[in-house]
Every structure is written in C-alpha cells, then in structure tokens.
C-alpha cells in the first residue's frame, strides 16, 4: 500500500517534545567554545545625521572585549540588498554618517557574557542631528525629504512597463475606484534572528544561523565578506519559524563573522524581540488604488491596479515583491483588460521583505476588494459575480495581463472551488440568518465574506537537488537542498523515499541545511519545497530503485523487467527470491545524486468563506467560522498539509483583524513588543473547516503544488469582506488615530551590584544550586546554568509564553521570574515531563498525534501550559482550552491542532483515571 496520501505523524516530534529542538541559540557545539556575545547599539531615531560616537565608556565596562563602529569595518562595504534597486541606496553593516530607521545598527559591542553586552551598549554615546522622518508613501513620493542624497529621489524601483490608458474604462457601465491600505506586518517568527560564527585553523568560516536557505546564506555571506563561497560552511540548526523573513542571509550574519575574525574568537548573536520587531525585514506595506469597471449584468471588463510599495529604509527583497502583485493582479478572473504599475519607495522605517505570501496576498486583497465593491455597486451577490468572471477550465494554461510579462496559470477549477466552499458553508442559510438579524436589529450582526484566490508557488527558482543512499545496515540517508522551519520535511521526504524503496520511514534520515554536506540547493521559500525538493527526493529514490534492479539482475540471474522492489528488497516477481537493498549497498555504494527542475511555477488556488460576528455597539469583530477550499493538487501527508493551511488561515485572519506595524509621525515604532503588536492567541480564533479538492499540476510527477502560503492569501480578504459585509447596511464607522506613545530611557551602567545570591532550586526532580546575580532570570538559570535548553525565549514582555515552566506545579513564564524568586522551590521543564523521546508524557504524545507543533519553538511552553491547564481543569471544553492558552503564542500558527491536542490529552487522561 502506498504511504503517500496518508496521515503519518512526524518523525521529528519525539525529540522536539522531550529535550526540545536545537535552535541556533541552544547550540553547545565545541566550535563555539569561548564565544563572545554580540550586542548591537541601535538607532533610537528614525532619521538623523550621526555627528559623533563615543565608545570609550563602553570599552571600559566589565566584560567588554571590543566596541566597533562603521569606521572599523574594513572589508565590509555598504551593499545594495536588492540588486535592481536604485544603486545609491546601499545599506551599511553599521550606520556610517546617517541613520534611516529606528533600530538600525550603529555600533557593535562584544562581551564575555550577554548580560554585560546590554549594560555596555547603553554606554555608547551617539550624537545625532535629527532629520525629518519620511513615513507615508505619498510623502516619500513627493520627495520633500530624500533618504539618499546621492540618489536624489526616494524611488527605489519602478515597475512601469505599462502606460495607463485614459480611455481604459470607456466601455464600462459601472466604474468603482478605491484606495486600499495593505498594512505593514511583522513576520515575527517566534525564534528571533540568531547566528554564531567560528573560523577554523584552515581559514574557513563555520556559520550557524537561523535561515530558510543554507546555500543562499552561504553565498551572500561570502559575498559580503569578499571571500569565496567555498570558504564558508553554513549549518542551519533547527529553525523556529521564518515566514519569508529568514530567506537567505541577514547582513548581521556577515557582521558576526567579520567580528569573529577580527577578535580571533567565536562570536554568538541572538537578538531580543524588541530588536526583532524593528530590525527584521517586514512584510506587505502597500498602498493600492484599484479601479474596476464592467456591465450591470456582472461582467467585469477592466481592472487597474496602481501600487505604492514601502521598501523601508534600505531596499531589500520587499522592493521586488510588487512584481508578483502585478503578475497576479487579476487573480482568478478572466478580465478582458488589465493594467498595472508599481513604484517601490524608501521611507524611514524598517526595510521590507517577504512575509507569508509575499506579493500575492496584496494582489488578492486588492482584486477581491474590488470585486466586492463592484458587486455592491451593481447590487449582485458577490459570490455570483465571482463565478461569472473566473477563468474557465478550458482556458488553461492561462496567461495573465497584469504586467511584468504576466503569469502562466497551469491548472485551475476556480468556479468549482467557489461552489464547494459555498456548499460547505451553507451559504444560502447564512444569508438567511444575516437577513433575519438585520431585520431584528441584533447587536451581533452577521457578516459573510467570500474570497477566491490563485497564487504562485515554486516560482523563480525551479531546480532543487537531492541525494538518496541506502546503507549496508538497511538505513537510508536523504540529502535535500531544502530545509524545514516547521514544515516537516524530515517526515515528508522520508515518505517520498519510502514510497519507492519500501523501507519504513523510521529507517530513513533526512539531512538538510549543511552546505558542506549539500553544496547545492535553493531552500525553503515561496511554497516551493515539496514540488521541487520533495520531488527531487522522489525522483532520486525512483532512480535508485532502477539502479538496484540493474545490479540485482546479474546477481539474481533475472531480467530487469522481472524485478521489483518491495519492502527494501529487490525480488523476482512471482517468486520468493531476491536480495535486500542493504546487501547491494554492502557490495557497492548504492546512492543517487539528482536534481529536479519543474521548469515553471505552479498555481494553487482556492476559495474561502469567513463568517464574522460584529458587535455593532462596541465595534468588536469575532471570526465565528472559516471554511476553505485550498487546492494544491494531490496531498502527500494530509496531517502536514492541513497544518500549513491552518497556519496560513490564522495568519491571514490576523492581518484582517489584529496585526499592523505602526509608526508615529516621527517614525517611532508603536508596536515594538508583543505587548503592542496584535499577535493572536488561540483565544481569538475559531477552529477551521477544511474542504478537500485536488487538481494536479502537470509540472511534476506527483502533481503537487505548494500549500504553505495559500491559507494566508485566501483568509485575509475573506475576513475583511465579512467585516464590511456585517455592517454594510449601517452608517460607516469612524477611524482611529495613532499618536506617539514611547519615550526612550537610558540608564548609567551599574556594576557596583556585583553581589551574588545562592539559590537552590529543584529542577525536574534534581536539586541544583548556584551563586547567581540577583537579576538572573529563571529562564537563563535553566538554560545557561543548568543547561536545559528546551525552554525558549520568544519575547521581552511576558507575552508569548515560550518560556513557560511549572513552578511548584503551576505554570509561570520563566522570563518574568528571577532565579532568586524560585529559591527553595521546584521547577519542571519539558525535559522533566518526557526524559525519554520514546516514552512521551501523555500531553506530549497528544501534541504529536494531533500535529500540534510545527517549528517547535512555542512547543515547550505550550506543553507546560497545557499540563498546568489540565491540572486545574481536567475536562475542559474547546472554549476553555482556547482561553486557557491565551498566554501562549504560536506563530506557525497551529492553534487548531494545538487545541485538538489538549482535548485529546484530556480525553486520554480521563480514560486512564
């Protein structure tokens, strides 16, 4: 029986759920012995001239080994982060004469201990002459203040291959135009950026880093350092989420490597959440003007999209993403006339990059809003209007007219997807319910939003490398150019190899993210992994079977055609005779190295229905139901694919209702912590209804398209539409304004407080004792003093719960407990629940069974919070579980399955008792 298409639980989970995953900051690799810690001094100003930097006081502070500014960085020249952008807009590794966003690195401090770094960084005196902030895209376009005087403009990149036609809408009976904000979002992976560098005696650099693409990071870092790529060995440990913001290398990786070389010692870097919220590339950030025209019978005739995209202070990949927005401008619709242009502009804000969907959600949100506006104007049902205008199945492959040469859609059944989702939602009943509530004038009004989408997956880079080797002991190694940050490659790729080899996945090890072991690869981004990297593994395993049959043919004195591979053994069909693949491997290496090239992108599609209740007295909108069709072709592992859909949907809902990176008029970030940024918990979201539909692509042998971003793309416009729909019969709501909220404080260094306190804490049943600084946080005691690294740190504000442990049996956030406060008390971490990966605690086992973890970073905290929750309420309802987990954030965001895991754990303990 084929393993493909079955719900296989993840191979990686037993370790993730016992000792925890190993992220970059968890590494105890001997190459990092004696490492120094990098702390960056960051600009508190959005825009200003640097008139002086005094590092002397910082240099004299305890534990400081070196303080560096731009003037010291010989060999690290300012670099254009996106090659096609205006060539004057280069980014320095540390600010030279000017700062252009709050959070821009200005100086680097190396200390023996990270705590010393934060003390010393505050002593670096930087004098600034403030310059006007440039926040709004229209202000940037006007160019009253330019960020780069040498450029003479704020325009980073123009997409202007189409000229707007003055008579474009002349044949339309109805024309609607609207300006739409697609707000800036923080990718906010729960593991922040981190890297560690060590130079070997052979002169080669080993760089451990949190990235989605090992080989790209290697090439970029080598380029920044001005050395050959062969001199760089990138190793990706487990990665705690990326969502596009960890594509390739971060400039700080090169700085870490440069500093390590300079001081002749390894250097470690791991940023705080506050730094991450201003320093990591952010997503979306488009101001769009849509114009749609057509006939009153519902036919759309013309669509125009005009985009201003926010590149942030230094043009990076975000500058390029309007390219995708234009390609996908018409979405699923066959519109006779489409025109678009885009301009990417610099502003004094955090630079922008890819975030889950990266250019396509912006296109979808624009066209879907336009379809709603058009439907409302002609008084037709928005779902009907959509179905009238979709690309019909007989028109594939279909080339879009959005600009940038258009996109070529491979396969699609757009109307069918809409019909299925409407049926599953009970659309007619929902409309009836809505009408009844409106009639009654209920406080809770019902809104129904419908979206239809198509997106690009596996675009840009079509090739991926793989190797499969069967060993003499019967085990298998798979090498892949893609690497996971929650997607489950270790399991999925093993399934693909197992399908051909018939060897159980337990015996198959998938290796990734090591550039010496796997020199060639592209990595994980743009929902490309399965259809490129996975298919390469599938192809390699298939070729290995052919190779094995050829070798076995002589030994078995049979013709190749009469042989088959079953359960890891080459057998002569219809007879018992055969030879194990392991035996063949013992005679001669049995390995295939291959690459698969899809040659083109695939275009998954779907339709979402969101049902929202809006309290018309308070303005609060709550998502009641989400029903989706997300068709990405045949599904390899439904458990994993559903996890991707859940996560995408949750992030999409969150954009619609909660998240926005905001600045005040002076360019101060207003959402620099998780206390301020609207990152949702399980309590704000419902469970989702997923409807299956599989339309294969002809581009690869398993027919699969990408699924990682689809949910995000469909959910945002569906929820937006539903909220508008709920109140469309009422007067329009007022808007809110956003004044400044933050000051910034400085504190003199204070190391007269060198007193230490003796603490005795029982950790996982074992007594521990140490002399500690009073300010040592319990989480650092557990991680650095006791050496238990499962417990993670995800924020600075007691918001995320990744650090949750049990203190005398109750859940607490160990980042907000001093070690001295836990003196004489007992702590339990996830390691204490399940010391043995093979013997998981019932809660941990339930998380595995229900696929309640993806990247694994929130998992230790989530598991410990669950243990505490079930202790206090052994038989919770779903609502009680969601509320009980309000203090734990999962960015992936797998709340749907996490909630199921908790309910399953409650059931299993119930049946045990």
């Amino acid at each position: 029986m084929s393993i493909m298409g079955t719900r296989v639980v993840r191979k990686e989970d037993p370790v993730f759920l016992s000792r925890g995953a190993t992220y970059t900051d968890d590494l105890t690799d001997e190459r990092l012995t004696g490492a120094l810690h990098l702390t960056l001094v960051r600009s508190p100003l959005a825009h200003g001239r640097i008139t002086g930097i005094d590092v002397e006081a910082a240099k004299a502070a305890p534990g400081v080994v070196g303080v560096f500014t731009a003037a010291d960085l010989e060999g690290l020249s300012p670099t254009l982060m996106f090659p096609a952008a205006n060539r004057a807009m280069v980014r320095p590794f540390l600010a030279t004469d000017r700062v252009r966003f709050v959070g821009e690195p200005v100086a680097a401090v190396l200390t023996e201990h990270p705590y010393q770094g934060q003390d010393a960084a505050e002593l670096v005196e930087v004098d600034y002459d403030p310059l006007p902030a440039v926040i709004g895209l229209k202000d940037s376009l006007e160019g009253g203040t330019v960020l780069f005087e040498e450029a003479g403009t704020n325009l980073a990149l123009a997409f202007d291959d189409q000229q707007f036609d003055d008579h474009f809408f002349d044949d339309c009976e109805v024309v609607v135009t609207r300006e739409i904000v697609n707000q800036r979002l923080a990718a906010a992976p729960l593991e922040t950026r981190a890297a560690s560098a060590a130079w070997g005696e052979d002169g080669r650099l080993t760089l451990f880093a949190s990235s989605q693409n090992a080989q790209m990071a290697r090439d970029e870092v080598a380029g920044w350092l001005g050395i050959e790529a062969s001199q760089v060995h990138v190793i990706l440990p487990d990665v705690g989420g990326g969502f596009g913001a960890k594509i390739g290398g971060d400039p700080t990786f090169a700085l870490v490597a440069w500093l390590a070389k300079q001081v002749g010692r390894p250097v470690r870097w791991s940023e705080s959440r506050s730094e991450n919220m201003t320093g990591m590339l952010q997503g979306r950030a488009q101001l769009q003007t849509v114009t749609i025209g057509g006939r009153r019978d519902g036919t759309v005739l013309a669509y125009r999209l005009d985009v201003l995209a926010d590149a942030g202070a230094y043009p990076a990949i975000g500058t390029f993403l309007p390219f995708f927005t234009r390609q996908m401008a018409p979405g699923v619709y066959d519109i006779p006339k489409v025109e678009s242009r885009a301009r990417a502009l610099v502003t004094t804000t955090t630079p922008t990059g890819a975030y889950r969907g990266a250019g396509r959600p912006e296109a979808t949100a624009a066209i879907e809003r336009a379809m709603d506006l058009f439907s409302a104007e002609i008084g037709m049902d928005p779902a009907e209007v959509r179905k009238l205008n979709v690309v019909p199945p007989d028109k594939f492959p279909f080339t879009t007219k959005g600009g940038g040469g258009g996109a070529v859609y491979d396969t699609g059944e757009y109307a069918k997807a809409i019909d299925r989702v409407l049926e599953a939602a009970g659309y007619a009943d929902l409309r009836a319910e809505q009408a009844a509530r409106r009639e009654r004038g209920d406080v809770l009004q019902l809104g129904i939003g419908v979206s239809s989408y198509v997106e690009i997956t596996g675009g840009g880079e079509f090739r991926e490398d793989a190797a499969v080797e069967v060993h003499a002991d019967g085990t298998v190694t798979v090498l892949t150019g893609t690497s996971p940050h929650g997607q489950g490659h270790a399991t999925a790729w093993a399934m693909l190899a197992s399908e051909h080899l018939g060897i159980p996945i337990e015996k198959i090890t998938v290796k990734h993210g090591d550039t010496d072991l796997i020199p060639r690869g592209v990595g994980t981004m743009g929902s490309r992994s399965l259809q490129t990297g996975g298919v390469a593994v599938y192809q390699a395993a298939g070729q290995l079977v052919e190779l094995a049959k050829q070798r076995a043919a002589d030994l078995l004195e049979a013709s190749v055609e009469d042989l088959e591979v079953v359960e890891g053994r080459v057998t002569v069909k219809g007879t018992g005779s055969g030879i194990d693949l392991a035996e063949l491997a013992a005679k001669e290496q049995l390995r295939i190295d291959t690459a698969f090239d899809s040659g083109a992108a695939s275009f998954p599609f779907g339709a979402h229905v969101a049902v929202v209740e809006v309290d018309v007295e308070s303005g609060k909108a709550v998502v009641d139901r989400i029903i989706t069709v997300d068709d990405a072709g045949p599904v390899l592992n439904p458990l994993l694919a559903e996890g991707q859909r859940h996560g995408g949907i949750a992030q999409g809902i969150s954009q619609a209702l909660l998240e926005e990176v905001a600045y005040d008029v002076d360019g101060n970030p207003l959402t620099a912590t998780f206390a301020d940024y609207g990152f949702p918990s399980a309590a704000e979201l419902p469970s989702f209804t997923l409807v299956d539909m599989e339309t294969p692509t002809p581009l690869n042998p398993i027919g699969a398209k990408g699924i990682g971003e689809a949910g995000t793309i469909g959910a945002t416009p569906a929820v937006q539409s539903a909220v508008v729909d709920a109140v469309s019969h009422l007067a329009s709501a007022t808007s809110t304004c956003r004044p400044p909220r933050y000051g910034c404080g400085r504190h003199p260094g204070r190391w007269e407080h060198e007193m230490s306190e003796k603490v005795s804490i029982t950790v996982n049943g074992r007594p521990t004792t140490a002399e500690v600084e009073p300010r040592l946080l319990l989480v650092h005691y557990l991680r650095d003093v006791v050496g238990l690294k499962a417990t993670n740190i995800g924020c600075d504000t007691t918001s995320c719960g990744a650090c949750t442990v049990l203190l005398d049996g109750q859940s607490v956030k160990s980042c907000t407990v001093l070690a001295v406060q836990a003196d004489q008390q007992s702590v339990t971490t996830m390691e204490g629940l399940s010391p043995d990966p093979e013997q998981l605690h019932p809660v941990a086992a339930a998380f595995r069974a229900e696929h309640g973890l993806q990247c694994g970073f929130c998992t230790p905290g989530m598991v410990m919070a669950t243990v505490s929750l079930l202790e206090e309420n052994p038989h919770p309802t779903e609502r009680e579980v969601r509320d009980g987990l309000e203090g734990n954030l999962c960015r992936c965001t797998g709340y749907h399955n996490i909630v199921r895991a908790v309910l399953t754990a409650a059931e299993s303990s119930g049946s045990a008792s």
Partner: protein
Amino acid sequence: MIPVGFDYARPDTVDGAVALLAEHGEDATLLAGGHSLLPVMKLRLGAPELVIDVGKLTELQYIRVDGDEVAIGAGTRHHTVATSDVLTTECPLMPAVARTVGDPQVRHRGTLGGSLAHADPASDLPAAVLALGGTVVLRSPRGERQVPITGFYTGVFSSVKEPDELIVEVRVPRTARAGWAYEKFVRRANDWAIVGVAVVDGRVGLVNMGPTPLRASQTEAALADGASIEDAAALADQRTEPPTDLAGTAEYRRHLARVLTRRALERAAAVADG
C-alpha cells in the same frame, strides 16, 4: 532583555521589609509576583537600586471574613483570588475580575497588592476594588493606616502610598447579595483592558478611562435618583479623561464606557434579581 543590576533582599517578615524600605527610600522597590515590575525592569524603563522580595511572605497570603468585610492579604496571588471559595461566596466580583487579569501564568504569579500598588489605570483589579469601595491597609515604621481606595490613587502609576509603605491588606465589603458584573473590552484575551467596567451594588468602577481608576460618579448619582439603566449608563464617560493610543481614541473609549456600563448594569441587575 535583562534588567539593570540591582541589590536583592528577601526579608523574613513584613516588618523586616518595612525596615528596609525605610532605610532605602525611593531607591528601593518591592517585588511580589514581579509581573508588573520585572517587564518594566527588563525593558529598562525602571532600574531600582534595591529589590526587596516580599513574594514568599506567607503572612501576606490569606483571605478571611472579618466582620462586614473580607480581608485579603496583599501577597495573595490572582489565581488564589480567582478560585477562592470565600470570595466567590462573599464578594463574587473579585474572583470574576481576577480571572480576567493577564493569562494563567500571570495569574499564578501576580498579587493583589502588587497590582494595586503599581497603579496602572489599565489594570482590572484597582477598578474592581474602587467599585467595591474597598480599603487599602498600609504599613510603615510609623505603624499601619487604612486608606479608602477612593482616596488612594493620585495619578498614572502614583498613589498616596509613601516610599516606605507596604500594602499589607486589601479590605472589601461583603457584597454577596448585591448585583455585580465586570465588562472588559479587549481585542486579544490577555491584553490590558481598552476599557473595563466593574459594577457592584449600583457603584461603577472604570478601567483605563483616565490617569487613575475612576468611579462613574454621574452614572451612580443618576441611578440613585432612580434613572433607568440606559439613561444612567449614557453618563458613564462624564468627568473622565480617557487616553488616546494605538488601541483606540479617547472618543472611542468614551463610547465603549457608555456601552459597557449599560451592559454591566443590566447583567448586575439580572444577578441581583436571580
């Protein structure tokens, strides 16, 4: 992020803590659960020289009926308040409000005294105690004094508590038979209240409607004069000074205060009738 260095003391008694406070004055800060203090210290918005840990003082951890009041030790954790049988019977508003503070982990650590002392106008419990007309008991080297909560707060993060005073107890009236309700408006479950309204026995406490927790005095007066709930609630934002921030404008908060007050009063009336 980590706090600026500090000295640490963990006295064995309340009097020991008070003595340390007297000695160090404004350089010292009390640490109970730490869930207001430590985030501030980690973001380096505050940097005390001396941290006096009173979190393990069991003499501050109790809930007991005392005459017409319930006396709650200042070191009592939110979770304990939320699950207290005594309070559920004698003063059900307190556990109901405590259940809405932060999240379970925060409630396992945070203390009633700490919450009241921190004087954040966006906190839930100060407004609840205000609606109850409770009393704060302070101890210093000069002895103990009782301050009605109505006279306790003086501004954002400030109160009449002297630097050498420690909150040892919070006293709330036994209101078992009175109607009560708490309406908290948030976008995310564990956020601070954008606006909160605590109602008990015709008194109305407002969260985040000014520099301190406030009573909706005009609403209370109207109710006392026999006005309808709807008419009284329409006055809830009178004499308030709500802030404008990312979560909402002052105007929006005023609107919410009126809506939530009406809902809280209606629920309270239903409880009282039931």
